[in-house]
C-alpha cells in the first residue's frame, strides 16, 4: 500500500480518496440522478397543465385509488402479521421455529412473477382454492381487486417481521419477565413493554412495506388482467401508457412513484436518526 506522508496509517492518499469519491458520485449520477432528471424532464416537457391533465385522467385516478387501497389493506395486515411473527420468533422457543423464519423470507427469495402465477393457479377458473365455487357465487378474485390486494400482501409480507426479529432478539425477554413478575398480563406486557421498545423499528418496517406495496409491479401485473380504470395500479398504469406511446403521460404518472420514493427516503432518514437516538438511550 502506498502511504502518503503526514496521513494517518489507515488513510489512503489524497488522490485515491478523490478518485474513489468521484467514482461513487459518478455512478450515482449515471444510475440515479440522470434517470430522475430524464423522468422529470419528460414528465414536464409539454408544460405544467399537460402534466396535471395527464395525472388526473379517470384511468390514472382509478389506478391511484387502487394502489392506495391495496396498500391500505396490505400494510396493516402485514404489520399485524409481522409483529406477531417477530414476537413469536424472538421471544419464544417452539417446534418449527426455523421453518417459520424461513417461510417469512420466502417472498424475498421468490420472483414476484411466480407469486402472481401461484395466485392465478389458485383462484383461476379451475384453481385449487375453489375457483369454480367462487365463480358460481359471483365472487371475482382473479383480475379484480382481491387478487391485487393478495399479491401485494404476499410480496410485502417480510418487511415488518424482518425489521423486528433481530431487534427483539437483541432485547431479549428480561423486561417482559420483569413486567410479568410485577403482575402485568400478556397484553399489558406486549403493549406497555414489548411494543414501545421496538416502535422505531416498527415504523421503519411499515415505511419500507408501504413503499414496496405501492411500487409492486411483477406479482400484481400477473393477477391484474390490465383492465383500464379497473384493475390497473399506478405502476401498471405507467406501463400501459408507455405501451400506448403516450410517453409524456407515462412519465407524468411515473413521477408520482418517484415522489413516493423521495418521500420514503426522507422519512427513512428521519426514522434512522430517531432510531439511532433511541438506541443510544437504550444502550446500557
Amino acid at each position, binding site marked *: 500500500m502506498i502511504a502518503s506522508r503526514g496521513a494517518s496509517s489507515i488513510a489512503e492518499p489524497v488522490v485515491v480518496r478523490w478518485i474513489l469519491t468521484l467514482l461513487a458520485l459518478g455512478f450515482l449520477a449515471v444510475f440515479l440522478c440522470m434517470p430522475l432528471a430524464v423522468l422529470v424532464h419528460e414528465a414536464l416537457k409539454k408544460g405544467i397543465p399537460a402534466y396535471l391533465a395527464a395525472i388526473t385522467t379517470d384511468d390514472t385516478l382509478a389506478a391511484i385509488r387502487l394502489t392506495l387501497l391495496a396498500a391500505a389493506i396490505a400494510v396493516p395486515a402485514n404489520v399485524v402479521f409481522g409483529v406477531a411473527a417477530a414476537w413469536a420468533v424472538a421471544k419464544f422457543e417452539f417446534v418449527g421455529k426455523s421453518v417459520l423464519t424461513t417461510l417469512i423470507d420466502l417472498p424475498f427469495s421468490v420472483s414476484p412473477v411466480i407469486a402472481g402465477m401461484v395466485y392465478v393457479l389458485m383462484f383461476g377458473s379451475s384453481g385449487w382454492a375453489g375457483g369454480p365455487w367462487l365463480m358460481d357465487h359471483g365472487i371475482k378474485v382473479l383480475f379484480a381487486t382481491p387478487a391485487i390486494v393478495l399479491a401485494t400482501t404476499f410480496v410485502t409480507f417480510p418487511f415488518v417481521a424482518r425489521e423486528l426479529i433481530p431487534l427483539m432478539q437483541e432485547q431479549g425477554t428480561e423486561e417482559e419477565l420483569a413486567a410479568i413478575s*410485577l403482575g402485568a398480563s400478556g397484553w399489558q406486557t406486549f403493549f406497555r413493554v414489548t411494543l414501545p421498545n421496538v416502535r422505531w423499528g416498527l415504523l421503519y418496517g411499515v415505511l419500507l412495506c408501504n413503499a414496496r406495496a405501492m411500487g409492486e409491479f411483477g406479482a400484481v401485473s400477473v393477477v391484474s388482467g390490465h383492465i383500464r380504470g379497473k384493475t390497473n395500479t399506478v405502476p401498471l398504469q405507467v406501463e400501459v401508457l408507455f405501451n400506448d406511446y403516450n410517453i409524456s403521460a407515462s412519465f407524468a404518472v411515473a413521477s408520482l412513484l418517484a415522489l413516493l420514493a423521495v418521500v420514503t427516503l426522507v422519512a427513512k432518514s428521519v426514522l434512522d436518526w430517531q432510531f439511532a437516538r433511541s438506541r443510544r438511550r*437504550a444502550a446500557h
Partner: protein
Amino acid sequence: MRIDVRNVSKRFQDFRALERVSLTVNDGELVALLGPSGSGKTTLLRCISGLDFPDAGEILFDGDDASSSHVRDRKVGFVFQHYALFRHMTVFENVAFGLRVKKRAERPTPDVIKERVSTLLRLVQIEQLGGRYPSQLSGGQRQRVALARALAIEPRVLLLDEPFGALDAKVRKELRRWLRRLHSDLKLTSVFVTHDQEEALELADRVVVMGAGRIEQVGTPTEVYDRPASPFVFEFLGNANRIPCMVENGHAILDGIPFARHTAPRIGDGPAIAFVRPHDLEIVSDVRALPATIRHVTAAGPVAKVEMALDGLQAMVEAEIPRSSEHLPDLVVGAKVNVVAREARVFSANAAPPPAAGPAA
C-alpha cells in the same frame, strides 16, 4: 412470610439443575443461596418466584401450595441480575409500572400512585432521579430502581438474583450495607443468590451452600464458615489449604508429625484430607513442627501471604501472617521454616457421602 421448599427437582434436558432440594425460609429472614455457577441456585430462586416451575416437589408460601400459581399471582418482588429496567420509561414510570397494571378495581388513583412512588424513591434514596431514563443512571442507581420497582407491588417475598454481580467492588460494598439496613427496617422475607462467599457471609441471616443441584449445608454464616459440613463447603467458603494426611486417635498426622493443635470433627483412623485456613497456619520456632520451604512472600495489605512447599509433599500451602509478626523479617524465599495448624478440619479420604465405613489400611 414463610417459604417451604419440599423435594424440588428440576431438569433442563439431561442437566439436573435441582435434585430433591428442601429448604425452609422463615418469616422476615434474609437468606443467601451461595454456590458456584451451575449449582442450581438461580434455578431454585426462579422456582420460588414462579418464573420457572419445578418438575417435582412443591413450594409452599405460608403453608399454602404455590407451586402451580403463576408468577403474577404470587406477589413476589423479583430483582433481576441485570435489573431488566424498562428502557423506554423514566425511573418514576418504572417504579409505577406494577401499580398501573393492576386490575381497575385494585388500581390506586394517580395521586396515590404518585405518592407511593415518591415514598419508594425516597426509601431507596434516589428521589431526585425520577425523571431520568435507565441509561442515564449508574449501575448502583439502577439497582436501587430495580429494588424500588419490586417493592412497589408490596411483595410478600423479595427475591434477588446476583444483586451486586454487575457492580464494581466499592459500590458493591456500599450497597450491601445499605440492603442489610433496608432489610432490617422492612423485615421482608428475602432470598438472594450469589456466588460471592463474602457477600453471603456478610449479608445473610442464614447461608444455603449449594453444589451440583443439591444443598450442601444450611446454617448461619458462623456455622458454615467454622463448621463446614463437607470439603466442598470448606473450599467454597474462603481460602483453604488441602493437606493429605493420616488420622490417628483423632490427630491429623503427616510424616509422623501431628501438625494440628486442634483436629475436628472426630473421625475414624485412616487416610484423610485436612483443611486448614491460611490464617490458621502458624509459623513457629518449634523444630518438631512440620518443616516447609518458603517459595513466595506477598507483603502488601494487612497480612503477609506466605507460600510454602511442605517438605516431602507435593502440596503447596499458604499462610497468612500478621504484618506485625516477629517472624516476618526472617521470611524470605528459600528459608526453611516450621509450621503448625491451629485448627484443621478433617474429612476421611475414602469417605463417600455416608461416613467412612471404618479404619482402612
